[in-house]
């Protein structure tokens, strides 16, 4: 997909969060939703919203449907019960990874700037 990373920035927070969650492991929809809720609190994304989001992210080439590794599968099965096997797993594409990295750098720059301007003082733990 011939996209310039810069065209997609800044990402919507939810999209960025989803990319971050998927950065270290492929997940299925339900596990993704649980993880997002753990981070953000509030109501969970409902299926209609979630899958329209995932569809758009697939269409934009950020993520793709992948075969999960056996370890992932086992972990997911332990997480959410017996049905985990039959679900579709989503993982980052290289473009998605690049976009997430660019967004992270953008945010990092913003954070550094805020720190320089004494908006925040503490070092990240």
């Amino acid at each position, binding site marked *: 997909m011939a996209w310039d990373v810069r*065209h*997609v*920035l*800044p*990402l*919507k927070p939810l*999209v960025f969060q989803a990319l971050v969650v998927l950065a270290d492991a492929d997940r*299925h*929809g*339900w596990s993704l*939703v649980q993880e997002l809720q753990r981070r953000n609190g509030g*109501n*969970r994304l*409902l*299926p*209609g*919203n*979630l*899958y*329209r*989001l*995932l*569809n*758009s*992210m697939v*269409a*934009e080439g*950020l993520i793709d449907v992948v075969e999960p590794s056996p370890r992932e599968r086992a972990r997911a099965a332990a997480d*959410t019960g017996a*049905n985990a096997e*039959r*679900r*579709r797993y989503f993982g980052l594409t290289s473009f998605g990874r690049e976009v997430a990295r660019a967004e992270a750098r953008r945010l990092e720059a913003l954070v550094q700037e805020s720190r320089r301007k004494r908006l925040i003082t503490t070092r990240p733990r």
Partner: protein
Amino acid sequence: MRFYRLLLHLFPRTFREANGADMARQFADELQAVRGRPIGVAGLWARGVGDVIWHAVLARLRVGWTLSDAPGQVDRSPSRLARRAWLAVGSDLSRDFRLGTRRLVKAPAFTLISVVTLGLGIGSATALFSVVDAVLLRPLPWPEAKRLVSIYGVRPDRAANPAFASSWNRGQVSWPAWHQLRESAAFEAVGVWRRSRQIFTNPGIEDGVDVWYVSKSFLSLLGADEAMGRLFNADEDDDYVQAETIILPHETWLRRFGGRPDVIGEKVHLAYQPGSERVASIIGVLRADVRFTDQPPDFLLPIGQTPPVSRTGTPVVFAIGRLAPGVSIEAAAAAAEPIVRGAESPDSRSARLVSLPDELLGSARRPLWVLFGAAGILLLVACANVAGLLIAEARARRHEIAVRVSLGCGRARVLRQLTVEHLLLGTVAAAAGLGLAVWMTPLLVAMAPARLPGLASVAVDLRVAGFAMGLGVLTVLIFGAGPALTLSSTRPTSFSSDSRSATARHPAAHRAIVAGELGLALILLVCASLFGETLLRLTSRPLGFDPSGLAVISVESMKLPFEVQSPTVEQYLAMSRAERVAHHDAHHRRLQTTWTHTAGVLQRLNALPGVVAAAAQGLNLPFGGRLSSVPSVPLSAEGDPSGRLETAFNQIVTDDYFETMGMPIVRGRGFASADRGEPAAITSADRSASTQAIVSRELERRLFPDGAVGRRLVAAPPYRSVYEVIGVVPDIKQRQFTEAPRPSLYVLDSMVTTIHHLLVKTAGDPAAILPAVRQTIRDYDPSMIVTSTTTMEELIGETIAHERFRARLSSAFGGAALLLAAIGIYSLAARRVAERRREIGVRVALGARPIHVRRLVLRETLLAVTVGLLLGIPLAVVTSQLVRSLLFEVSPTSPRVFGLAAAVLATVALAATVLPASRASRIDPMLVLRE
């Protein structure tokens, strides 16, 4: 979850195919997470449904999730441009949707009432539609079903005999007749079947089962295909010896054989009487979609199993046939007549052909359409309600719209906005209705009389869901069109307080709609009370016995302590005297064994906690009507010169029968164990020896008008038994509530070798004691097999299933209509009071007392009620004529029914006005005039 999956059909197909399964699973997970918390579940459902509807609309409009907040990102690829064009339209629409959603959310009372009202109407109509669709609209599940006919052998001479009341015109045809019918050019194919109640005795499982003997052609007429193995072949139609084969219907295969794929070749043990056990090997399993013409059998055997002796002339098989193309049913009947009558047979049987669809659906059609019509009327009431609400809403919104128009909003824009709003309302209401239908349909199926064909396939499927959605959207669009059009033509000039009060003075449309609603509700109320009254009249007829607390256990003894060899009447008559005595001796030894056996079982049952009395009975169980004919005996009074014969039901009972059944002894006495008599009394072939008997009142009335006790009855040849009447008991209903009293003769169980039904009277719930009863019987005698257990009230309930179904459903509809009418009246009155605040304030300021104000409001309701009744009564009269054939002992124009319905309606309407009226009477003139 099924509902959720249905809802997912709102998404575009490609989207659904890719994600639907995952979405449903995720929603199930969410539900799992809130399980046990009703409020959480309800909230999740509400959010989940909203989520699907909203995102489905967006997905259909191809509005993608905007991933980025980047400004001005433009892609010039054509597909992207097309998408942006879509997006432009979509976002306009989606703004309308958002606006509409906001409005609906901001007016929760209006939205809730509209959705509940419409949902109720749509839900009932949809649930009924799912039944009507499966039972009436879909073709019967057989190939060329329109040409299928039942071929009966009719015995008009038996029409008057109560023992054959339900079977004389549905008789069987003979074996040779079947062979000739097969050759007849009038029929393309003729298949035969006969049923028998047998006992399935595979090791470890013992149960009563329905076995059908069928011909090869019978299965092909039904279009039955095998899922496994093979079907019967032509040899098995005729070959008595070889036919040791059996076919399993799909249901049996699943239920009794666990759906194992390797059942072919397995053995099935069946017995139709003690000592008759046979083994057949399974050759095939039918497909799941095979439908039978009656309650489906448990096993299928080849018709060739019919013993050769039955193949000569005696009618033994039921026949169905498919008419040859172009042959009318009358022509086929004419062709079948000489065949069924039979050349040699003295049997006066004539042929009767009935179209199978007519036979199966004929009596169900009208009641179902009536109920569907009732659901339609309820939907109309709901629509009227919503229309009234929309009109009132429109009056209230004139101001808002006038502001918008004066700010430059075009008419089309206003119209579109309102239409989208209504569409939204309709969709939500339809979704609510669909949910209601999904919940209601299984209830309906459970409530419906079990014999409706196609009932098994009733389901809320896409077709039904489409019907509901279509109904919702259509009703709201149609009933919203008027208000929307009026509103959209609002001129900016109407934005003044003058015109506000001017429009408020003309609520005629709203009032007319409410009046119409009341009229429609009256129709439903009248129908409900007509059907209710019918059920009441039916069930209030005395049964003659007390069914409460009565458990019925049907048993079959598989083993007898001796060989049974009953001679036929002819054989008996041909015996020498010594042979007869020997036969009677053997018979008596047998009887003695069996009745001590029966007494043992009854004694143990009596000892169970909660059991008040227990008795046993032969074949003629009241309301146990599985038999097509019942044992009966022609009797005359001894010494009656006229020799007048009366056919009486032959009831074989044990000592405590009358106590168990709750039948009082009217005259004379009941049975005592001494009445079983000394063996000699029965054994001797002495004709003068008599058996003690008890007669029903009807038999007494017909044969002994001046008292039966102490008199003697003689059975006509070839029976010749003599009975001494020791008591008289009331007449009881044998089959249904409507039947005329029939003569019955009760004798002790000394005349049978086996009993068939055990009756247990309990102090509590009879169903609760059934497991203990089963266990007791099994412990007492493992060879006594319980073939079915039920309660007397359930058996009786089956005979009034249709009436009860109609009464329950129509009263549910009537109640719902009443509720909707009350809501309609309330909203009219409340709205009117709100609009007339100023006027009422002025009146109060000029000295009107609260009672006057209340009267003012009530008068308006009374007007609506009067108009509604004037409208509704003629409609209800017409409707009641349509349902006339479904009524029993109630006149369709019964003034009592109409008066009651009208009074209930008027009372409810006035009650619904009380709140707005009292609110009006409390209006403070100072406050109002200052506004």
